[in-house]
C-alpha cells in the first residue's frame, strides 16, 4: 500500500546488457522506470535500477506490494516475490497495447526469441536462437567499438550506406572476426554497420516462426532501428515496434506482479 493508499508493484528485467525496472500502479499507469547498464554483479545493478525507478514513482521499497523478476539474471533478484520467463513477460508486455494474433520478436542483449501469440493472448510457439548465434546486442556493441563510434552512433553510420557488407549470421564470434576482416580490406564503416544489422536480421529469420503481423520488443530496436529495417527488408513483412520496446519485458513482469497481488 502506498502513502496515497494505492497498490504499486514493480517488474525487473535483468538483462545481460541492461537492467530495466518499471513501477506500475493498479490502474496500469507506469509511474516509475529505470534502465541501467549491466556490469559487475547483477545484484548491485538491480538495486541501482530499483532505487531509480522508486525515486521517479516517489515510493519507498517497502511500499511495493510485489516484485516480479525476469531475464538472464532474474535469479539474482533477491527482492523479487516471483519470477517469470522472458518469453511470458515479453509477450505480456507486447500485448499491453496490442492484441493477438501476432508474432512477438524480442531482440535483446543476448537471446532473441520469436514468440507466436494467438488471438486470446496465449503463447502457442517459441523459437530460440542457436547457441553460437546469441549475443545480439553484445555483438553490436563490439561492432561499435571496432568501427570506433559510440553505440548510439552505429545507426547513423548504417543509414548512409548504400548496400550492406556481407557479415555472416552463423556464429557471433565468426561475425566479429568478419567485421575486423572487412575493416582490414578497406570496406567502408557505413557498409559494415549496415552489414551488422543485416546479420542480425538473418539470425532472426533463421530461427523460424516468423509470420505477420510482427511486433518487436527488446533493447536492440530502441538503439539500433536499422535492425528493424533489415528485418522488414529481408522478411518482406511490415514490422511494428512496441512502444518503449526496451521496457516491454519489465512491463510484462510488472503486470504479472499485479496479477499476484489481485490473487491474494
Amino acid at each position, binding site marked *: 500500500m502506498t502513502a496515497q493508499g494505492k497498490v504499486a508493484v514493480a517488474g525487473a528485467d535483468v538483462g545481460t546488457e541492461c537492467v530495466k525496472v518499471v513501477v506500475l500502479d493498479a490502474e496500469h499507469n507506469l509511474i516509475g522506470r529505470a534502465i541501467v547498464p549491466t556490469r559487475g554483479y547483477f545484484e548491485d545493478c538491480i538495486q541501482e535500477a530499483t532505487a531509480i525507478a522508486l525515486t521517479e514513482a516517489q515510493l519507498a521499497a517497502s511500499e511495493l506490494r510485489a516484485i516480479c523478476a525476469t531475464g538472464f539474471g532474474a535469479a539474482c533478484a533477491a527482492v523479487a516475490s516471483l519470477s517469470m520467463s522472458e518469453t511470458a513477460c515479453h509477450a505480456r508486455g507486447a500485448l499491453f497495447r496490442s492484441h493477438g494474433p501476432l508474432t512477438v520478436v524480442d531482440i535483446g542483449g543476448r537471446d532473441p526469441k520469436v514468440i507466436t501469440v494467438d488471438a486470446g493472448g496465449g503463447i502457442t510457439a517459441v523459437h530460440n536462437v542457436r547457441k553460437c548465434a546469441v549475443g545480439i546486442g553484445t555483438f553490436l556493441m563490439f561492432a561499435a567499438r571496432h568501427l570506433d563510434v559510440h553505440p548510439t552512433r552505429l545507426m547513423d553510420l548504417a543509414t548512409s550506406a548504400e548496400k550492406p557488407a556481407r557479415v555472416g549470421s552463423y556464429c557471433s564470434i565468426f561475425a566479429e572476426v568478419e567485421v575486423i576482416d572487412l575493416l582490414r580490406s578497406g570496406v567502408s564503416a557505413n557498409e559494415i554497420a549496415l552489414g551488422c544489422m543485416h546479420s542480425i536480421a538473418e539470425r532472426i529469420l*533463421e*530461427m523460424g516462426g516468423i509470420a505477420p503481423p510482427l511486433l518487436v520488443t527488446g533493447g536492440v530496436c530502441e538503439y539500433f532501428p536499422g535492425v528493424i529495417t533489415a528485418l522488414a527488408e529481408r522478411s518482406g513483412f511490415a514490422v511494428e515496434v512496441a512502444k518503449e520496446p526496451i521496457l516491454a519485458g519489465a512491463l510484462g513482469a510488472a503486470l504479472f506482479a499485479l496479477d499476484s497481488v489481485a490473487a491474494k
Partner: protein
Amino acid sequence: MRILVVGAGALGGLIGATLSEAGEEVVFFEANVARAKLLNDNGLFLSEGDAGERCVRVKVMTALDQLAPVDLVFIAVKSYQTTDAVKAVLPAMSERTWILSTQNGVGNVEQIAAVLGHSRILSGITFHSIQHTGPNRLRYRSGIKPIQMAPLDGKVTPAVIAIGATFNAAGLAAQVVPNVDHAVWRKLLHNAVVNPVSALTGMSCSEMLADDDLQVLMRELAHEIVAVMRARGVPIDDEEDPYRPIIASQKALAKNRPSMWQDLVRGFRTEIDAMNGSVVSEAKRLGLSAPTNDAIVNLVHSRERQHQRRQALGAQTLAAVKAAQAQLPLQPLPRARFGGMPSGRVPLECAPKLKEIVRSYYLDLAEAGRDPSRHVAWCSGFGPVEILRAMGWTPYFPENHAALIGASRLTGKYIRLALADGFSPFASTEMVSDIGAMLAGESPLVGIYGIDAIPRPEVLVYSTNFGPYVARWFEYYNHRLGAPLFGLHPPSVLDEVEKIEVDASVQQLLRLVDRLSAFSGRALDHDRLATVVEHSARAGLLWQRILDLAQHVPSPLTYFDTLIHVAPMLLMRGTEQAVTYYEILLAELEQRIAAGVAAVPGERLRFYWEGPPIWCALRPLASLFLEQQVAVVASTYPRVFALEGLNRDNPIESMARTYTSVFPNRSREFKARQLAVDYRRYGIDAAVYHDARTCPEHSTVRYGLHLRLQRDTGVPPLVIEADTHDLRLVSIDQIRRQLIEQLEHV
C-alpha cells in the same frame, strides 16, 4: 537324351544345366522373354557351395512350335503353374515322351495326369538347396539324399531306368523306386510345418525354436499331417514323437529361412496350396480334419492378397504422381551471373565441349519431364543409376544440383529458408541448400542451361554407400513430392570387401529390381543393362586414366579441374556420350603433357585434397593455390568416380561389388592405406584435410587420419575448417594464412 526343361528358375536351371554339361541335349522353355534372352546370351552361372563359378551355355526357347518331340519333359515351375505348363508343352511331346515332376508339395502329378492320363508320368522328389545370387546365377548344395523318381502307374520299365541312369551319369544322384508317395509326404511333413510359420513370422529356424508358443503351433500342424500320413499308410520316421525330426531339421537350418518367406516379401505367390492346402483336402477326403493347417493356408493367402493390394496402391500412387503438376517450375537465381567455378588456370580446350554435353543432358532431362511417355527418376550420386537407365528412366541427380547451388554462392538464402523450415544448422548444408532452393522455387539450371523446370520424379532411388544422410535427404523429397522411395543400404565401414557383403548387396539390388518392376510394370532389360554397365565401366576406366595423368610433373590438370570435369561421370554415367567425352579429355591432357603445359605454371609443390570439396568457394580457393604455385593434383572425391570392376558380363554382381567398395563406405584402415598409396603415386608434398562442419562422414580428420598418415608417410597435414556449402563457415583469409604458414616449412 533329348530333354525339355520347363521353367528356367532355380531347380530347372540347376538340373537342366547339369544335364547339359554332361552332354545331354537340353532345351529350356521359359515364358519370361527377358529372362530367356539373358540366359541365351550370357549363359547360366553355377557354383557349388563356396567353390568357384562355372558358366553353362544354355538354349532357352519361348515358343515350342519348331521343336521336335523330346524324350523327357522336366517340369520345374511353381506348383500352381503346373497345369498351364503341361498344356503349353504338348506340341513337344510324342507318345514316347516321359514327363517328370520333382516340384514341391503334393498334387502336382495329379495335375499332370489330369491333362495327360496316368502313363509315362514320373513323380519325383529332390533335396537340393538352391539360391539365386544374380538373375542368371545359382549357388547350390547337393541334397542330403538322392533324387527319387517313381512311375505314377508303378511300372518300372527300361525307359524309366534309362532316365534314372541319365541323371546319375550327369552326377545327379538319382534312384528309381516303385513309389515316392512316402518320400513326398515325409518331405512335406517338414516343409509344411516349417516354411509357412517362418514365412508368416519372418523368423529364422533358430528363432522359431526358441519361441515356445510357436513350437506348440508347429507341433499341432505336424500332428494333423501325421494323422493324414497314417491314414494313407505312410510310415512315420519317429513313431514315439513324430515332431522330434522336425526339431532336428530346424536345428540344422539354424539361421536360415525357407524360401516361402522370400516369396511373401517379394510379393510372389507361394506354394502353400500344394503344401498345407493339400494336407487339408487330403484330410477331408480321408474323413479327418486339419483346422490348424487350414488356418495357416488362409493366413498365407491373406498375406499374398495384402501384397496385391500394395501393388494396386503403387499403381495408384504412380498415377497420382504423374497426374500432379508434372514439373517444379523455377525462377532463375536472383543474380544471373553464374561464376563460382574456378578460373585463372590455363583453360582446358575441352571446357566448351563439357558445357555442351552437360547442357544436352539437362535439356534431355527437361524433355523427359514434358514427354508423358518418358519416365524420370531422382537418383543419389552413387545410386544404381545403371539399373534405372536400363529400366527406361531418365535420371536426375540432386547432388549435382546442390554442387551448382554451392558454386553460385547463394547458399546463404537457401540455408536460411531450410533452417526456418526446421532443419538444424548442423544438418548437411549440401542437403539444406538444395531443399532451400526448392522452397524458394529457384535453380541455377535456369540461368545456366535455360531449362524452366526440374521434372518431378516417378521414383526416388538412393544408396547410402556415400553416407547415411542421403537417406534423410531423399526422405524429404518423398514426403514433399509423394514419389515412392527405394533405398539401398549396403554393408558399410568395410575393410576388405568380402563375398558375403557383395552377396548382401546383390540381394538388395535384386529386390530393388523386383520392386521397381512391380511399381512401374516394366521389366529390367538385361541386354540394355549390360550395355549401360559397359559404358559406365569404360567411362570409369577413362576417368581413372585421366586422374593418373596428374602423376606427371608438372601436372597437366588440378583437383579444381577434376571437380568440373567429373560432371559427366555423375550425370551421364552409363551413356555413350560420357565415354566419348572422356576419350577427348584424355587426348587433350596427353597432348598437354607432350607439350609440357602445366596446369599451375611454375608448379612448386604438389598437394592432395582429402575431404569434401568446398563447393561454395572453389574459385577463390583455386586462385589462392595458383598464386602460391601449389598444384593440388589429386583428391579423394574425384577419385571415387574412378569406378573399377564394373563388368557387362556380370552386371548386377559387379555393380554390387563396385558400389559397395567406394571409398566413403570403407574402414578407417582402408582409407589410410589407400591415401598412403595415393600420396606416393602422385608425389605429394603436403595434404589438405578439409574438416567440413556439416559433413562429418567425409571429414576423415575427425578421427585423426591426418596424424596417422603423417606418421606413416611423412606427408604433413594442413587441416582446414570450413564447409561444403555454408559460406559463413568458410574464411578464405584464414585458409590463406594457414597455407602461407605451411609453405614456410614444407
